[in-house]
């Protein structure tokens, strides 16, 4: 927030006489009450429900739900998909940020818009495009069938759809950060004879590491939690192509609420962890 009033100035203004009128305190209380009430209904109540329903039959039943074979398979699949998608998108994000932030070239802002595209696209469409490419009636459907390769209703499709959805997150985090930091130190390193990789690892990486950490964990949270895109390409084969969010849906539709909310509670904890790391990163940056 460069250029804004400083903390001291705000404190000074707040202490000026005439600030604390009856109406201004009333407005203040109404604002705080409305904010808390709105968040309580829409955010805190649902979050609490997840854990209360998951534990409604006791801790024993809660842990029992993680012994189910299909639940374990769903957790394994989610971890596998994230383990493929997150590193790939991280490498892409770093490469794209290096090209965009370090160099001036034509069509740069168009490229940035294209990278942002998956965020504006409905997750259902992100799945749909791969079905149209690789599905039974898709462009490559026949060829894939002849060669006995399955992508749709199988793990490769889930990986591709997840990659599409989480594509921009690392790049979006790094591009503005690296643009703001400028090129001077890298140019100095190159002039002094360092190679490209050495410059990146010893000069650039230490400067951007907190932004990178945040981009990666955000990408990971979205990858593990993606529902719409994965739902379209997965085929919902229990124990084989259901990720954790899809498994939540299956259990929920079977009225197995303890099981559904138990898996949901793991995903909620993942989101909480993501936000904690985000807060830590923001503190480190200051």
């Amino acid at each position, binding site marked *: *927030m460069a*250029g*804004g*009033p400083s903390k001291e100035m705000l404190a000074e*203004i707040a202490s000026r006489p*005439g600030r604390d009128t009856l109406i201004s305190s009333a407005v203040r209380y109404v604002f705080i009450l*409305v*904010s808390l009430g*709105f*968040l309580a209904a*829409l*955010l805190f*109540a649902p979050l609490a*429900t*997840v854990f209360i*329903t998951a534990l409604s039959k006791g801790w024993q039943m809660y842990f029992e739900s993680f012994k189910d074979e299909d639940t374990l398979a769903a957790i394994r699949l989610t971890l596998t998909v994230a383990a493929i998608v997150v590193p790939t998108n991280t490498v*892409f994000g770093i*490469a*794209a940020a*290096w*090209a965009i932030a*370090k*160099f*001036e*070239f*034509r069509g740069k802002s168009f*490229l940035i818009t294209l990278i942002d*595209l998956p965020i*504006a696209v*409905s*997750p*259902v*469409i992100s799945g749909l*495009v791969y*079905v*149209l490419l690789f*599905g039974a*009636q898709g*462009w490559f459907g026949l060829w894939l069938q002849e060669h006995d390769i399955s992508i749709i209703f199988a793990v490769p499709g889930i990986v591709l759809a997840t990659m*599409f959805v989480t*594509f921009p997150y690392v790049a979006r985090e790094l591009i503005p950060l690296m643009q703001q930091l400028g*090129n001077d130190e890298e140019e100095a390193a*190159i002039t002094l004879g360092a*190679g490209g990789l050495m*410059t990146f690892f010893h000069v650039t990486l230490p400067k951007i590491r907190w932004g990178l950490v945040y981009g990666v964990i955000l990408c990971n949270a979205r990858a593990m939690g*993606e*529902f*719409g895109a994965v*739902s*379209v390409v997965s085929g919902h084969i229990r124990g084989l192509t259901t990720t954790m969010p899809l498994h939540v*849906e299956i259990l*929920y539709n079977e009225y197995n609420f303890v099981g*559904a909310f138990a898996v*949901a509670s793991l*995903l*909620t904890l993942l*989101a909480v962890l*993501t*936000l904690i790391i985000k*807060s830590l990163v923001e503190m480190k940056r200051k």
Partner: protein
Amino acid sequence: MSFRQPSILPGFGLTLGFSTFFLSAIVLVPLAALVMKTATMGWDDFVRVVTDPRAVASYRLSFGASLLAATLNCVFGFIIAWTLVRYEFPGRKLIDSLIDMPFALPTAVSGIALTAVFAENGWIGQHIAPLGIKVAYTWIGVVVALTLIGLPFVVRSVQPAIAEVQRDLEDAAETLGAGRFTIFRRIILPTVFPALATGFTLAFARAVGEYGSVIFIAGNLPMRTEITPLLIVIKLEQFDYKGAAALGFIMLTMSFVMLLSINLLQAWSRRRMVAAGR
């Protein structure tokens, strides 16, 4: 002007080549497949599919509920952002970091959790059911889910703008006899408006495409509580690839328009910042 300006830094060809290749393989080629699939179906077929009454009813719900949700987000998002920037109260930091929760929380989780809270026997549902308001399994439920999803976009856009509002100006206006409403309309709103518009568009764009959190709470009745993304999924399950592609094409076009307006809005608010000397 040549394609790029000279620089002594290495790796331009490698990183640009890799990222454009990867972007094409994962995003652009698949999206092109959608456009081409739509193109193979002929104009008459296309018009028939996208103007089908069931499809039109789904647009009305998807766009109507998203507009309403984004509007609610602007009102409550402004109040929340104002509270977080201007007032000190216990738990402020914690609540500030929880604002991002809907963004980090998997949509399926927010879907089942909201349904549990707003169902007729839920914590909130049981108190508003006697008033004759049903939220879960009606269009109101869709609005509630989309409001939760869009909230962080508005709050995070507006927060820095509120911090920019100059308190000296507010004080000066008050000394000169301006009422609270005049101060809001003439000093606060002009500074915050571009950010509010950006937040509105971001929340709206996200809401139109949203799937996971909505399908649990919506009830999914054709013509009544069926959103467009769900209709695409239904068409795919019936192996009607062309119909799905046509509806997908309509939504994709909308996304492009949104993305363009977001970019224009952001450029506009940057220009305003510069013009105001900040």
